[in-house]
């Protein structure tokens, strides 16, 4: 048992801050909701930054036993390097989304209050709180509750505008997510029945390969795949992510699908519910997602759907790390590199995809449509948005020095040393397909229009700047390879393949 570190009391604060903000916003209502959000976000961002700094300085994880009850009876929060890094990324993207959404969901003087704006700010804070809970929870049941909170706050974001198509997309998303969480929940009593605890660290020392554990692991993994929208369980994702308002799509695509993925990482890497053959299957599904998602993205007529199908493909890359980490011949160092590659893919996709959804939303707002064939001339009228889109695309393709490059570099190095070249072939093909649609959109946007193009609405410069800043972040993320400490490895058990 690790001793309490100074600063561990920050963890419950980091978890509660967004929820407290959400409740205050609900109570004060109306046009104050946005002000509450803008008061809470810097506070939460500061908490996440301090937690990350404490971890980087001490090299030890933070943990906090709620009510001073020790595990296994009590519930503890724990911030290891993975959780702290993701908390910081989450806070940054939530903050950027809030700045981006300010013109769209801000209350203009004299304008009537809108229910959509009121709901948006609360749901944004709720999603953030749920993500923090997913990251800090250290037992399997709290993770279930956190995942459900995430679903309940993400589903209404899809249908903020209340149109029939988005309601349908939200309902479909909810039904997929509920099936997924019920499957996950079956595993909880099964594991508790065998090992008598749900705490991740305690389980990690006890799990063995026997029938109940295998059934529990299979059901929980399947449930999380449905929530993460891994091919072929991705059907709900494109209509939901493309139909939502742009700031909501940003959060859904950049962060929400990663929540259930990180729970899967906890199960496989931290609890140790892993198996080599199942890892090959996960990566095969990931490869299917990469090829299928990219080809469908290429065939889309509308920009937002293209970006949504590209998310389906990028989720596939996340699963390539499993056979590399749990292959028969993988050493502990190779497993750690594979995990770093997967997490870098999570972070770089989050920033790049947020920037791309933001620019797609701005293009839609400015033109009144987002048909790719009619984008000619947009590059001249809103250069910042198009540059943001292309820079995000560069990170998805994996050109240096982007975060996508570093993620693929790490994954590729393990593919080479463990001799699994076929995954490298899939990755390269996926990169080429991604490059095709990014170049296609860029060329359309840069070409000269046949008739002079007029914008239907003024483009908010601040929103464009936010999208561009995120895109630049994703392109420069590759430089974290030069950080002196391996931040993500802090407080993590050595991976046993």
């Amino acid at each position: 048992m690790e001793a309490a570190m100074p600063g561990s009391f920050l963890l419950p604060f980091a978890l509660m801050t967004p929820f407290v903000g959400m409740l205050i916003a609900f109570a004060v209502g109306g046009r104050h909701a946005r002000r509450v959000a803008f008061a809470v976000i810097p506070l939460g961002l500061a908490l996440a930054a301090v937690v990350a700094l404490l971890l980087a300085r001490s090299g030890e994880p933070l943990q906090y036993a709620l009510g001073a009850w020790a595990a296994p009876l009590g519930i503890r929060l724990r911030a290891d390097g993975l959780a702290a890094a993701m908390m910081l990324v989450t806070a940054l993207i939530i903050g950027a989304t809030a700045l981006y959404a300010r013109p769209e969901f801000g209350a203009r003087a004299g304008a009537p209050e809108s229910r959509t704006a009121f709901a948006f700010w609360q749901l944004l804070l709720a999603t953030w709180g749920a993500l923090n809970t997913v990251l800090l929870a250290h037992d399997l049941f709290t993770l279930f509750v956190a995942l459900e909170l995430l679903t309940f706050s993400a589903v209404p974001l899809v249908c903020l505008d209340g149109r029939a198509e988005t309601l349908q997309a939200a309902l479909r998303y909810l039904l997929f997510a509920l099936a997924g969480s019920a499957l996950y929940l079956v595993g909880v009593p099964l594991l508790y029945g065998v090992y008598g605890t749900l705490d991740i660290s305690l389980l990690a020392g006890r799990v063995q390969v026997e029938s109940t554990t295998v059934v529990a692991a299979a059901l929980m993994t399947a449930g999380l795949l449905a929530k993460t929208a891994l091919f072929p369980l991705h059907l709900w994702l494109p209509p939901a992510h493309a139909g939502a308002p742009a700031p909501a799509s940003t959060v859904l695509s950049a962060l929400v699908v990663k929540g259930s993925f990180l729970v899967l990482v906890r199960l496989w890497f931290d609890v140790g519910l892993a198996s080599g053959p199942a890892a090959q299957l996960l990566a095969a599904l990931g490869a299917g997602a990469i090829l299928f998602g990219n080809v469908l993205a290429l065939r889309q007529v509308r920009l937002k759907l293209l970006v949504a199908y590209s998310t389906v493909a990028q989720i596939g890359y996340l699963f390539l790390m499993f056979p590399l980490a749990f292959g028969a011949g993988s050493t502990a160092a190779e497993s750690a590199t594979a995990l770093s590659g997967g997490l870098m893919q999570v972070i770089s996709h989050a920033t790049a995809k947020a920037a791309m959804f933001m620019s797609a939303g701005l293009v839609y707002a400015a033109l009144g449509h987002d048909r790719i064939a009619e984008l000619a001339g947009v590059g001249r009228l809103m250069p910042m948005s198009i540059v943001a889109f292309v820079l995000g695309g560069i990170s998805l393709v994996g050109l240096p020095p982007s975060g996508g490059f570093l993620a693929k570099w790490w994954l590729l190095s393990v593919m080479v040393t463990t001799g699994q070249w076929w995954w490298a072939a899939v990755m390269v093909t996926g990169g080429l397909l991604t490059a095709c649609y990014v170049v296609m959109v860029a060329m359309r946007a840069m070409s000269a229009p046949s008739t002079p193009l007029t914008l239907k609405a003024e483009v908010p410069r601040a929103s464009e700047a936010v999208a561009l800043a995120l895109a630049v972040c994703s392109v420069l993320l590759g430089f974290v390879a030069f950080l002196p400490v391996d931040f993500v490895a802090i407080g993590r058990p050595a991976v046993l393949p």
Partner: protein
Amino acid sequence: MTPVTLLGLCSAALAGLGLYGMVTHPHPLRKILAFNLFGSGVFLLFGVVARRGAAADLGGDPVLQALTITGLVVAFAATALAVALLLRFFDATGTATLAPAADHDADSGNP
């Protein structure tokens, strides 16, 4: 066969029926009902495992009882959200079936 084993089999059957219903029924209301059947099976499983883990003078493991109560609240909230969404969808369209995804290339489909 002990009562605990029998209840364990019942929970497996309920969960299986619920999952089957969620996958095969096209109508969302039936899917929501199937989800609740699935949930009942899982909560019964919690009870069965709690009973197997009974010790001392307790009739069941209290940790799992506490988890069941939390799980019920979550399942109730999920059902309420799903029904509310379905009602809004019915108000907007006049039908409550999830037909195959509409043609998203259509101009009416703004983001």
